[in-house]
């Protein structure tokens, strides 16, 4: 029961979506609607698990007064603040003017945007310290990066403005992106696509059982 029922569920649901691709009419269209809604509901419950885990780890840290327990208390406080505010505010929690929206605009957005943007500094530092043309492959990588970076910004147009139309750095960058880069991306895409097809088939046929806590 513990292993057989999940395998049957995986097989039926997976097969249902495959058949639905070829027969998008009733009853498979109805099945698609059901599965979509059930998927959304399960997704909502899954996030609760993640949030409870975060709370559990933070509470343990605060209770045991481990190192940096103060920051764990801040995590708990900020989590509870926005959750309570959001749940109390009701369905229109995103409407401009609500407290949730205020927290989102003035706390979440600055923090989130800045977290991603400081990567720019580390990219520059890594480029200086680690990016070396040690062999032919690395040199090719560097040359492609150089032409794309310089060609995609106005400086490229400024430097190569004397060249005839169609032969400037911007045109070269476009050619790199549209031709050799697209070819490499396509090879990666086909490879990943075949891998996904193989893995999905294995999962639907019950050969792959990692998701139910077992090997083959």
């Amino acid at each position, binding site marked *: 029961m513990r292993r057989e029922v999940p395998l049957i569920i995986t097989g039926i649901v997976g097969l249902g979506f495959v058949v639905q*691709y070829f027969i998008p009419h009733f009853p498979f269209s109805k099945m698609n609607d059901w*599965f979509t809604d059930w998927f959304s509901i399960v997704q909502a419950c899954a996030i609760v698990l993640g949030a409870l885990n975060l709370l559990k780890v933070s509470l343990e840290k605060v209770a045991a007064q481990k190192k940096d327990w103060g920051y764990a208390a801040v995590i708990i406080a900020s989590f509870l603040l926005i959750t309570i505010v959001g749940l109390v505010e009701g369905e229109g929690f995103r409407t401009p003017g609500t407290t949730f929206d205020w927290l989102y605009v003035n706390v979440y957005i600055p923090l989130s945007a800045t977290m991603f943007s400081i990567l720019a500094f580390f990219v*520059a530092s890594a480029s*200086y310290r680690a990016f070396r043309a040690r062999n032919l492959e690395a040199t090719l990588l560097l040359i492609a990066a150089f032409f794309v*970076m310089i060609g995609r*910004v106005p400086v490229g*147009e400024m430097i190569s403005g004397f060249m005839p139309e169609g032969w400037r750095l911007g045109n070269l960058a476009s050619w790199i992106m549209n031709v050799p880069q697209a070819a490499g*991306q396509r090879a990666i895409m086909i490879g990943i696509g075949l891998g996904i097809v193989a893995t999905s088939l294995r999962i639907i046929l019950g050969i792959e059982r990692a998701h139910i806590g077992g090997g083959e």
Partner: protein
Amino acid sequence: MSTRAKEIIAIASITVFALIFYIRKVTGGLPFEFPMAVTYGVIGLLALSLLWILILTIQGKLIERRVVFVYVAFAVGLPLFMPISQKMTISPEVQQLYDAVLEQKPGSRVLISFDYDPPSAPELQPMAESFIRLCFERDLQVIIMGLWPQGPQQANLALQKVLEEEAIAAKNLQYGVDYVNLGFQSGNEFVIQGMGDSFKKKFPTDYQGRPYDDIPMLSNVKNFYNIDYCFNLSSGFPGSVEWVQVAVDRYGQDMGAGNTAVQAPTMYAYLNANQLNGLLGGMNGAAEFEILCDYEGKGRKYMVSQSFSHVVVIAFVLIGNVAFFMSGRKSALNGEKEQA
């Protein structure tokens, strides 16, 4: 003086500096702009200092990473004060997207999916504003939706900005007649799949809770077959990949995409296979589209900073490699001397 004391002085100085400029702003102080002489001076200083770093690096003294951080900050921040405008080459994929919109007849329906959140707004929001403006200028009907929760909020910000412009305001566009925001729907690519059958099933009401059947412009819109062009703005999952897989390949939708620069390289394979009809990649894509639309937006404004930051990164890569090669030659020469 101890390091702690220096840190406290630095924080206090930054706070005082910020207070002074904030009060100045609140009391009506005008923004700064470097005169051209100062601009050239700053550029010259940056170039000379990079040369100095090259010399140090060749001598084996790698500069501290915090110095690199300062250079990046200057390269991004200082150009915002400079009154420089620069020419750009229009990429073929951006031109393709612009032409695709121009091919739509007045009254055609364009579906725009906002699949990004505010951290990606510096790249995607200028694209959104330019695209919506172009649609309104061409008298196209705009249907907005989102697969990310924050997407429709970003859409409203773009709509608000575009509708306030004189030329667009003069058209007296009506919500529900000329444009509509259907809001966010959870379910990722399952939503797109469901829209292939019925928009109404996936979006029973609009962003404000108004029933689908109560919206005049949607009376003849059942599914993708009633949409003339799709434009997807995306920064991750779900996004352009899912739209191509479902809306384009399953339902034959004509679609263009606007992506962050991280995601854009992947989309070129789809563009080459004619699964995409136009692509805007990153901030330079936004800037090029603004040039085609003849609009001075944030995309074009930020490109000067983008130029400087790219030059600084390239300079650091070159400096590191020049030093690497020269130290390699030195080791080889030393090795030959020892052998002799």
